[in-house]
């Protein structure tokens, strides 16, 4: 086993990190599907909010956002 095999270590890190989370049984997940638990939102609203924040703040990038491009400056 070569220590320099980055793919193997990446797999270990990925599987290890995800496996460390508690598994929730399928019949316990009903609460996660209620309307108040839906984290995504209308794409038109996302576009509007991101464009505003991009023009207001010096920082860009994060949830749902590509930092830079696609927007002229006001």
């Amino acid at each position, binding site marked *: 086993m070569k220590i320099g095999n980055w793919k193997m270590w990446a797999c270990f890190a*990925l599987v290890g990190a*995800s*496996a460390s*989370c*508690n*598994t*929730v049984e*399928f*019949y*316990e*997940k*009903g*609460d*996660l*599907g*209620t*309307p*108040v*638990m*839906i*984290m*995504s*939102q*209308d*794409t*038109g*609203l*996302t*576009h*509007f909010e*991101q*464009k*505003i924040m991009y*023009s*207001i*703040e*010096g*920082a*860009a*990038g*994060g*949830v*749902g*956002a*590509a*930092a*830079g*491009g*696609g*927007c*002229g*400056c*006001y």
Partner: protein
Amino acid sequence: MGFVLAPLAGAQDGQVGEPETLFGGSNTFGESHTDVGAGYWSVRLGFYDKDDQGVGNPFVDESVTVIEPVITFDYQASEDFGYNIQLQYDNVSSASIERIASVPGTEESGASGDNYVGIAASFRHRLSEQTNLNWHAGASFEYDYFSAGLGGGISRALEPQDAVISANLNAYFDSIDLIRWDGVSDGDDDRTSITGSFSWYQVLSPTTHGEFGLSLTSQTGFLATPINAVVVEDPGDAPNPNLANNARGTEWDEVLPDSRTRIALYGKVRRSINDFRAMELGGRVYTDDWGITAFDLTPKYIQQFDNSVLWDVRYRYYTQSEADAYSESFTVDPISGEERTQDSELADFDSHLLGTHVQWGRHSQWDFGLDYLMRSDDLDHLFFSFGWKRSF
């Protein structure tokens, strides 16, 4: 704009139950439907206003008003393929555009406002029960600006771990006419922005799920704002009619580095209180090689009043440090090429945002959102949007 991956299943439709579903996160472009032939039309009207009453940059009126309609069509053509098309238009009225328009004898002197038109199309493919592929293309235009965007990503459900991991790559290629603060055209230039991101959606408990991610952006090319100027103050100068309050000083072009690397680490966790109430906490840490470090934290409360009314209220705290090239005041003529800016978006400030959003209706759905942002430099912002969505 951020176009990333759709969630793996129909969380958008708000159905309760579906326990086998991994609900996915908010890194979404296009929406996922379980039913072939399902989709929606939506129309949104956004309004954004920044009122500069002598605050922010003391030499320049930074007022701006934007009215933005967005039309979206989304359709699930087959079990394995769906698409989303979006048209965007902005009507921009700003003090900066008025300044340019008032300069006689320049090719832009007729511009009384700025019109932005954008189109974006996104396509989603289900490759297997666990794997989705998304890609998108788009373009946007303004009188002094053109941008083409292209990107894609892949997401994979890790079923035993109740997780969805996504990797995305987005690129924007922009071309800019360099119309300076004095209305004079200075040729054209371009910039390229490439963002790679990795996100992780995770079911944390029967009542809690969250999303975490990292995005890395590299930008090269012309990254300054051509209409921005830096004012070098000199009490010996005559009053300058182009500056606010006829200040005594001389304008110089803004100069910023021609490359920028940005890193953002972000996450949010939502917890169900009961079937009709939930809490969310989101946050982000950001840094770039221009010297800006930023942090934000957003708690949010969500409540469903009956089967068709969903309401949320949020607060967002944001703080950033200033860019290395930023200074509030310049008193010495800069050396040629020396990096300099007085752009208040690159200054040191913090802000508090209060916002609320209400959504009602089922197949024909309406929503209204209102936000007010208060900055420490008193450059406050108001924005709201009104949307209608018809599902079929």
